[in-house]
């Protein structure tokens, strides 16, 4: 294991495991709420935060967390106020985030667009020891938070109106999820990059649900997938000398394609007539192979 002899690779691999756990945990709730693109929006806004850090001489990780949280809360409030104009408002936030980032980095001393590139697509060598501590603390906080509020978040993301009628504090819970998403975006920024972080939230979940029937198994499978593609992607990035975000996401998409194929094969291997047996058995073939479409 020669790659483990490099300190920066050790840090990158630990960060990859943390990101691989945190991103799908947040992602499963975002996908359940049909807000799969929220991570993208937050990532764009976080870029402005990174550039602001360079401009003000503060650690970009700190300013990125703040900008991402502000962006996430804004997205959530826009969404909660109603459907009309919500997607346009989101689009404006996307563009504003990127433009603001490029503008501010241009204004900061010695800053160039190349500085932003490692934040956009991830970079192995960039995870410092200090970064790793912050990443571990933030990822741990996200995981504990979501474990504690998991049942409530499931109810809110499954049926927001019902959750409100059962007395849950829906506004607080959705803001909590938005904040967790913002923190996760920042945590994943160094490994996957701001433009690709959302893929690590969404693709493992989309992959898992090709073959699962329950929320719990979808969550567990997407955590396993998230860690596996993150670690494998970091190794590939080292060997091939490419941006880690790109290798992680390409791997994740490859596994997704395999899962779609597996589901297709499972569904078509068994004759449809088998479903006609009216024995009412719990594990019917239909249950095993039927679609997940809503």
């Amino acid at each position: 294991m020669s790659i483990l002899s490099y300190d920066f690779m050790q840090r990158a691999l630990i960060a990859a495991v943390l990101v691989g756990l945190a991103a799908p945990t947040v992602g499963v709730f975002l996908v359940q709420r049909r807000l799969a693109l929220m991570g993208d929006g937050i990532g764009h806004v976080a870029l402005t935060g990174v550039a602001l850090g360079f401009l003000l001489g503060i650690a970009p990780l700190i300013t990125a967390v703040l900008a991402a949280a502000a962006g996430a809360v804004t997205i959530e409030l826009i969404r909660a106020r109603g459907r009309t104009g919500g997607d346009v408002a989101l689009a404006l936030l996307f563009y504003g985030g990127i433009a603001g980032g490029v503008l501010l980095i241009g204004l900061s001393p010695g800053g160039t667009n190349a500085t932003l590139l490692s934040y956009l697509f991830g970079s192995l060598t960039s995870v410092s020891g200090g970064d790793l501590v912050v990443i571990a603390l933030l990822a741990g906080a996200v995981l504990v938070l979501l474990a504690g509020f998991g049942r409530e978040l499931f109810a809110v993301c499954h049926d927001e109106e019902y959750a409100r009628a059962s007395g849950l504090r829906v506004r607080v819970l959705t803001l909590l999820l938005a904040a967790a998403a913002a923190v996760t975006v920042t945590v994943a920024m160094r490994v996957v990059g701001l433009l690709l972080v959302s893929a690590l939230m969404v693709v493992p979940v989309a992959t898992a649900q090709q073959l699962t029937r329950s929320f719990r198994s979808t969550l567990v499978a997407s955590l396993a997938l998230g860690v596996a593609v993150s670690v494998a992607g970091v190794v590939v990035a080292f060997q091939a000398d490419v941006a880690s975000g790109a290798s992680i996401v390409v791997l994740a998409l490859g596994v997704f394609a395999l899962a779609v194929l597996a589901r297709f094969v499972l569904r078509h291997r068994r004759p449809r007539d088998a479903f006609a047996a009216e024995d009412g058995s719990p594990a019917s073939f239909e249950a095993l192979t039927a679609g997940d479409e809503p």
Partner: protein
Amino acid sequence: MPVSASVIDLECGEVVLDGRRILRGVDLRVDTSETVALLGPNGSGKSTLVRAVVGLHKLSGGSLMLFGVPAGRFRDWQRIGYVPQRVTAASGVPATVREVVASGRLSRMRRFRPASHADKTAVARAIDSVGLAHRARDSVAELSGGQQQRVLIARALAGEPDLLVLDEPLAGVDLARQEAFAGILGGLAESGTTVLLVAHELGPLEPLVDRAVTLRAGRVVAIGAPPPVTGEHARPDHDHVHPHEDPHREEPIIAPSPWAGSP
């Protein structure tokens, strides 16, 4: 609590949505163990009224008491089981029948603790009472429309509510399943659950209903015994088929509810 205590007491209720007055001075009182139906044409304000009762719409006028407590200070939401009008019980991620039903038990569960034996029993009983025990581990997205609606009813029952509020539980449900649903509701009513339900027409629920309140254009126009079933829907062979039903997976009539006779 005395038997005659009011569970819902709405006086002069007004609701304004998007600048339109949907409810105009509605009085509605539902007493313990009563089964009350809200009738009326589309747009008469039935759904808005039940949504106001469960706290989804704010009253712009009038007063609402729930279990004798002003709605603004009411916190015992686990006493109310709400069944919204939905086409599907599925969301963006697969979830089993059991997982969805268990989300109706949240207010009785503790954070960071696994579900207690009482929680698991209540969820299993709720699933059993709507006749879906053999599908508890299946994804709700695989169920037919009628079965998904029963999942939502089970979700409301899982919290063992004292008041059940159902918004159009019969919409899109054919006659056989309407009768099965009447069986469930009858069992609940017998065990003392108070029921408020919205319906277009009562059909097989008619014998269960103590009182029918008819709305028209946001006002109560009639209170009294439920009106007799008339018109096309009264014919015994009337088949209320709905496009999103998937009849080939439906099982026969549900067994008598295990909720019946429970203390």
